[in-house]
């Protein structure tokens, strides 16, 4: 675990920190008051961020939401593109007056509901337990101090 001070940011970063010290300080204090703990130190944030457990949480989150976002966006884009350029295909009637366009549109509803359900299940199983553990650890440290 590395808690090295970020030296790359030196000149400009330092100047910025100077100008924003007041509001930031205020915000952090209120945060601590809300949570009922002392503030978590910058070193702890960097240490937690660099920890394997946190890296795993970040990977688990991004590993799900990024591919899923790409997937639903492409699936939606396909629908819009077909609506614009494949009208012959979209107008094919399947049952009675129900055509491909309507079914494709309704499938967008189904996929949206499905992805929402999949994500909530995934988050409950893979994300929440890790996030809760890290949070409890950080906040108990603050209370113990």
């Amino acid at each position, binding site marked *: 675990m590395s808690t090295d001070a*970020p030296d*790359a*940011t030196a000149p*400009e*970063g330092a100047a*910025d920190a100077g*100008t*924003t010290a*007041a509001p*930031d300080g205020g*915000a952090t204090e*209120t*945060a*601590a008051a*809300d949570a009922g703990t002392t*503030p*978590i130190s*910058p070193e702890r*944030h*960097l240490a*937690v*961020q660099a920890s394997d457990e*946190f890296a795993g*949480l*970040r990977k688990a*989150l*991004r590993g799900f*939401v990024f591919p*899923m*976002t790409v997937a*639903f966006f492409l699936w*939606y*884009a396909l629908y*819009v593109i077909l*609506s*614009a350029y494949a009208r012959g295909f*979209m*107008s094919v009637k399947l049952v*009675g*007056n129900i*055509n491909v*366009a309507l079914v494709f*549109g309704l499938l*967008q*509803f189904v996929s*949206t*509901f499905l*992805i*929402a*359900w999949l*994500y*909530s299940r995934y*988050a409950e199983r893979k994300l*929440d337990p890790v*996030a*809760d553990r*890290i*949070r409890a650890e*950080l*906040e108990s440290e603050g209370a113990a101090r």
Partner: protein
Amino acid sequence: MKILLAAEATNGTARTLTITLFLLFVAVTLGITLWASRQTKSAADFYAGGRSFSGFQNGMAIGGDYMSAASFLGIAGIIALYGYDGFLYSIGFLVAWLVALLLVAELLRNSGKYTMADVLAFRMRQRPVRTAAAVSTITVSIFYLLAQMVGAGALVALLLGIRPGTTFLGMDADAAKIATIILVGALMIIYVTVGGMKGTTYVQIVKAFLLMSGALIMTLLVLAHYKFNLSALLGDAAAASGKGNAFLEPGLRYGVESGDALKTFYSKVDLLSLGIALVLGTAGLPHILIRFYTVPTAKAARKSVLWAIGIIGVFYLFTLALGFGAAALVGKDAITAQDKAGNTAAPQLAQALGVDFLGGDIGGATLLAIIAAVAFATILAVVAGLTLASSSSLAHDFYANVVKRGQASERQEVSVARISAFVIGAISIVLSIFAQNLNVAFLVALAFAVAASGNLPAILYSLFWKRFNTSGAVWAIYGGLLSAVLLVFFSPVVSGAPTAMFPNSDWQWFPLSNPGIISIPFGFLCGWIGTVISKESDDEKYAELEVRALTGAGAH
């Protein structure tokens, strides 16, 4: 064909009932607002409803905020007049929630406090970023607010059956429009200044319940009319439209194929552009984003989006039945005789269904009155949410953090927020009175385009890109905002077309009505350029943001 809205005999009954029901809604919501005002003490109460709402309550409130009159009356109207193409809107508006669910809601809830800018400015220099965020929040909210209020004014004459030449309480149609805009504006100011987020949230919940119930009843009646045979409903709608099968296919309104190859090309690109803006705009709308702060945890924020997706999805399925139902049972001629844009299709359908199922003209008048009152409630709830979003940003971002540099007390901040709500409300009333001839759909589309081009890139970069910095945030917001607004200004929506805002002038050179396909990538590009040209970066603050966003440690 069958029924012209508010035939003279039923006119009086429907009008009295509409007004009675609307006043009942106003009385109930004002009661709730007064009750909420006594629970509103701290800034967290005023801005975030004390973060005490459950996932389900907030999901309903999100639905209430999102299902505007433009959705209810507008989409049903587009489907009734143009068939399938109205459905494209519903789908874009729904799929958009996945962006909010997967990428934004929980991380924003954990890392922010009251406004969108809390997240954007988290690890940046406060003043430039908060100024930019306040400008963009207020721009998006005012466009959206104008759309709703202008819509309210246009609807009242129709819903109360005030025709040219007749009067109501001594007012002709124009006076009634202005009176409605002032009434709606005054009520929204009261909801927000008195009830804060708590009062506003309950107003949204009540409205969502009424809207869903009204839409459900009408949908069931439409389907019952066709013995629950969807194919028969569609067939009837297609036949009544005079367009035949084309009515059930994409292409009557968006991506229209004409003889001119270039026109057809632009028209289709415009359809793609609209689709992108619809999907990416939602997660950048400030009045939607601040709803995530009303729940205690990120998990509750997730639950509220899940509920919202369910409620909004089902609602858009209802609008499909309402739109095609209106096309089949009311008919294009009767709808356009009332309103050329089709905004009265849903209330007209209510009347037709009432006559059918509830027994004659009285039944028709009753159902019409109920749906008209629901439409007013819808408008009222949405404008309250928008006023709250913009006044929060003005007070918390601009006043407290830019003007007072973070030194304002909670008390001062909340007083300023109340004053801001009053001022923004008053400005909106005046602007709406002058903007009565603006196209409502244009204002909503512009709000979505600005939200998707300016706010969304800044939010996503903030949450996921370590290197992102002050310069990047400022570039993304102003770049996206300006490109969207300028492209619209030079588009056929504003000039150079018979349907334009200024039909007699022509400074148009941008061929698309929806700027999204250019302005959204441009916003992302600006954010990237702004970031790489600045050396600023703050690893400690990013660590704090990332740890807080993902775990909730230290969250408000």
